[in-house]
């Protein structure tokens, strides 16, 4: 049997846990991101967070702390900008972040004994997560979802119609700032799963697919979480199975996850058209 013993494999269980937590968190946060028109900001945060991933390899600390630390820094940078310059600011921040990543990856490769650093930070390596990473990712996702549960109603109103939300006396600026922190967290979890560069796929793909299938935001969030989870777990299973296609070698998990995300979006678009 091709998939015999898949759940007995420790790396697979860890991958299912990390990928699953990241997919659910990203799916829900991603719906807000799409509704707020901040997809590019999300990508910029991911690129900035990659510097944190590289820093974590350099310092030998948990990737989760590295990605989230720099992600938060990027969120502060974005939050300080006026709304009109958002895309420009994201683009500038993205470049600076990736430049820093190039430097830190160079140091990680030349000063410390780290191999394959660039690929694992940028494209992910779900099957070789450091021990303990799974529980940290799960804790991060649960904490993020709890905070989101508390602010979700006012945040949704502020995301759909900021002026109306302000008229009703909602703290729109505070909500925007809190959302950026949650976005940084979602990007961190996705970056750990599929790499910093590909994390946008997980953040935007399932929510965009869900919003093609339904207009109701709450349904879209549940749907996006489900689609993300299915893509992640499907990707892990396919990568595991690929061991038998090219003997002794697994294809990158990130490829399968992103391919499934793309297929889901294409199918939803075709169905609507």
């Amino acid at each position, binding site marked *: 049997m091709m998939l015999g*013993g*898949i759940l*007995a*494999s*420790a*790396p*697979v269980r860890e*991958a299912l846990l990390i990928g699953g937590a990241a997919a659910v968190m990203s799916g829900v946060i991603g719906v807000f991101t799409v509704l707020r028109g901040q997809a590019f900001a999300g990508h910029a945060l991911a690129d900035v967070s990659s510097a944190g991933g590289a820093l974590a390899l350099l310092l030998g600390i948990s990737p989760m702390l590295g990605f989230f630390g720099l992600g938060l820094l990027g969120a502060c940078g974005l939050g300080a900008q006026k709304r009109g310059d958002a895309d420009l600011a994201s683009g500038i921040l993205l470049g600076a972040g990736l430049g820093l990543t190039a430097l830190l990856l*160079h140091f990680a*490769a*030349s*000063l*410390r*004994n*780290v*191999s*394959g*650093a660039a*690929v*694992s930070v940028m494209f992910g*390596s*779900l*099957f*070789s*997560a*450091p*021990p303990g990473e799974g529980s940290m990712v799960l804790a991060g996702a649960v904490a993020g979802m709890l905070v989101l549960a508390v602010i979700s109603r006012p945040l949704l109103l502020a995301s759909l119609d900021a002026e109306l939300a302000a008229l009703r006396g909602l703290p729109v600026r505070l909500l925007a700032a809190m959302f950026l922190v949650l976005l940084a967290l979602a990007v961190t979890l996705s970056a750990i799963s599929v790499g910093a560069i590909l994390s946008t796929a997980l953040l935007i793909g399932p929510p965009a697919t869900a919003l093609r299938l339904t207009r109701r935001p709450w349904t879209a969030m549940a749907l996006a979480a489900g689609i993300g989870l299915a893509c992640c777990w499907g990707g892990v299973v396919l*990568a*595991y199975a690929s*061991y038998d296609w090219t*003997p*002794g*070698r*697994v294809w*990158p*998990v990130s490829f399968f996850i992103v391919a499934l995300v793309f297929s889901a979006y294409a199918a939803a678009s075709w169905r609507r058209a």
Partner: protein
Amino acid sequence: MRRTILGMLAAGLAMALGVMPARAQPVLHAVGLERQYADVMRQIGGPYVRVIAIETNPDTDPHEFELSPAIAQAFSGADVIVANGLGYDAWADRFLAGSHATVISAQAVLKLPDSTKNPHLWYDPATMPAVARAVAAAFAARDPAHAAVYHANERAFEASLVPWAQALAAVKTRYAGTKVAVTEPVANGLLRAAGLSIVTPFSLQAAIMNGTDPAPQDVTAQQALLAPGEARILVYNEQVTDALTQSFLALARTDGVPVLGVYELMPATATSYQGWMQSETAALARALAAGGH
């Protein structure tokens, strides 16, 4: 008075010039892309060859080596260059192509096809004698005046490898067929020469060596090998470690499987290639003796 001083200076200068040719001066310039090859070149060249080693930092991954202008300069003046080949030092290819130097590749000397999977040739006892003969021949061709010296040094080098061969034979007598787990294929040549059986799937070794995603199936297989009663020892690359290697090391320690760290490049603490190989072999014998309880 001034004349006398000038005369003394001239006499001194003449003396100095007269003395100089009697002392050995480097005639050739040689470059070893990895420290272990440079060391063998130094032993064969003696005082007549100035040798530069390019990759000398044992704490970084040689697979991720980057070039500097100083290195480019070292290449331009070289008469003889030794490379490993098999893509291990592919970064140097464009310098070697444009160089007037005699380029010796260990891969070519051993007639290995490009598809050879393990580039760490210097751990195989068959490699260095063949490289040393090629180096001596190249030195002799470039500097015929000292050909006899180079060939004599080469014979002395081969003779000095005998204690290492004996140590390997002793390990083989005692442990032939013993199962050994590894993280990377660094010391596989030495382990095979010692008659040991490397049980880790090569695809896992390649994934760790190349920094690509390991197959979960291989990780599970390796974890099973590190259970008590399976692999007698775990050999890992001291020079390059990652999270996966760390987790294997932790598992081996939990299960009481001795771990043996080996260096990918000749460390600065080693006085010679053969001394390094002997100490790695002695450490291997100690680890094997400690394992299997």
